[in-house]
């Protein structure tokens, strides 16, 4: 039987651009280029490797995001994923982590899955909680933050490098996995991959396709509110000296003045 892999990918504003908040305190997506979150490329890569090892596998990439989020799906398809699902609805604007996990979980269930693979964190919200929330909602094992992962005979195994220990984990499928940027370099799409991606199917679903009401998601349904967002004042310009042979001593003098020595 075919191994059904769903990879969740997020469309995010480019971190090297001038990211800021819109008037309603949601992420401004109009003035900064968007792209597939770099950390989700690692999830696509591991999905491709797991699919290679399996006799028969199908990779679906799934995103919840605005119209332009299709770019993220196209990138994942050009890396080699088989098909894509785009959940898009105006009422999703401003959805928080609890709401996003609801929409993703509904879509994953509708798509059908044996294995969900997510990134370790998005590069904009950076919470690192959506995979755990998906496992909770789907009622399946959470096997997260893996720097090494493999699937064999319906069992997923991996290594999680935590703060105080490195752990070997094991769980039966179906399961939710997330992988870190230590899991292995993500491939670049080949020219052939880019051409092939243009013909791969991208389905669009809205809230009604997932039996969700507008009030359950979006700014209105959010469990959290942002009261204000202020730009951090630029750090006051510091003293910069050129080393003419005494640079280390000058720095020591500064540190002593600040009572660090």
């Amino acid at each position, binding site marked *: 039987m075919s191994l059904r892999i769903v990879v969740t990918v997020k469309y995010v504003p480019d*971190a*090297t651009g001038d*990211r*800021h908040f819109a008037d309603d305190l949601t992420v401004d997506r109009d003035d900064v280029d968007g792209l597939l979150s770099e*950390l989700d490329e690692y999830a696509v890569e591991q999905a491709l490797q797991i699919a290679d090892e399996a006799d028969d596998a199908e990779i679906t990439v799934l995103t919840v995001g605005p119209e332009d989020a299709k770019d993220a799906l196209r990138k994942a398809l050009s890396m080699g994923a088989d098909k894509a699902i785009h959940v898009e609805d105006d009422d999703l604007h401003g959805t928080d*982590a*609890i709401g996003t*996990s609801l929409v993703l979980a509904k879509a994953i269930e509708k798509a059908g899955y044996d294995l969900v693979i997510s990134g*370790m964190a998005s590069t*904009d919200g950076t*919470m*690192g*909680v959506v995979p*755990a*929330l998906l496992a*909770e909602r789907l*009622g*399946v*094992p*959470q096997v*997260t933050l893996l720097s090494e992962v493999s699937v064999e005979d319906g069992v997923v195994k991996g290594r999680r*490098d*935590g*703060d*105080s*220990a*490195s*752990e070997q*984990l*094991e*769980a*039966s499928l179906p399961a939710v996995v997330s992988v870190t*940027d230590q899991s292995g370099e993500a491939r670049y799409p080949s020219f052939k991959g880019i051409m092939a991606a243009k013909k791969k199917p991208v389905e669009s679903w809205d809230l009604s396709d997932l039996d969700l009401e507008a009030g359950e998601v979006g700014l209105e349904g*959010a*469990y*959290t*509110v942002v*009261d204000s*967002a202020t730009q*951090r004042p*630029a*750090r006051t310009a*510091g*003293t*910069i*000296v*050129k*080393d003419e*042979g*005494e*640079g*280390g*001593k000058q*720095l*020591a003098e500064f*540190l*002593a003045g*600040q009572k*660090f*020595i």
Partner: protein
Amino acid sequence: MAEVLVYVDHVDGAVRKPTLELLTLARRIGEPVAVALGAGAAATAGALAEHGAVKVLTHEAAEYADYLVVPKVDALQAAYDAVSPAAVLVPSSAEGKEIAARLALRIGSGVITDAVDLEAGDEGPVATQSAFAASFTTKTRVAKGTPVITVKPNSAPVEAAPAAGSVEALDVTFSAQATGTKVTARTPRESTGRPELTEAAIVVSGGRGVNGSENFGLIESLADSLGAAVGASRAAVDAGWYPHTNQVGQTGKSVSPQLYIANGISGAIQHRAGMQTSKTIVAVNKDAEAPIFDLVDYGVVGDLFDVVPQLTEEINSRKG
């Protein structure tokens, strides 16, 4: 007065510093009730009482070490049901965030991660978060349910505030999901004898400019002269010069020490994301145009192989 649940991060009964910082923040909102799980849980009570815990709920079971995350969520939920707190605070480690999120979902609440400050407000606790590599500061609240908030290390001072800290056994029934993900082997990290990176008052980091694992000794010597932790950029980690556990930045640790010294690090946005909230920032870089200099309080344009050893020697002689 309302009670506030504080999830305790400890190693065999030794309470880690970020948990004591949480007690300081919890006291701004109500009376801290601590939850300590796993081997050594009862031994945490002394330190927690000294810093304001009125009660310490403990539960020891093999499940906490043998299975990932879910047993801890079950226990925290049991504590939530027993106490009906005004808020739940959890240290912002990778695991802490996962525990917090799952608890929030179960109790119908919102979750806020990586707070750097917390105050009482008219409509519940107000968290301060930093966004977009710390270029923005946001004030955030949980609008539904009991706020579940994770707080980054070094976000509050540790304060002595003696309280009863009476130990009570927590009743925990594990859910069906608790044994879903088995931990089949565990290799504890070897201690370096240096302070924990996220908790350290001073962090000394090296980047691609250090040019080889053999040269990281220079960075370590400087760190040791200051009693500091050692950090590294992803370039240095990817090159295999220093362990990933020491990586500072978006996909490594986020640090907020009193002093951060960047050596041979250019200051890419993903590195800044992990260190930009440091109080004092110092850099040594041979390129006067390196973006790291935009952040510094003091910078030396020069070769780190000259500057760092001289600095270390000067510090050691001043101490000596």
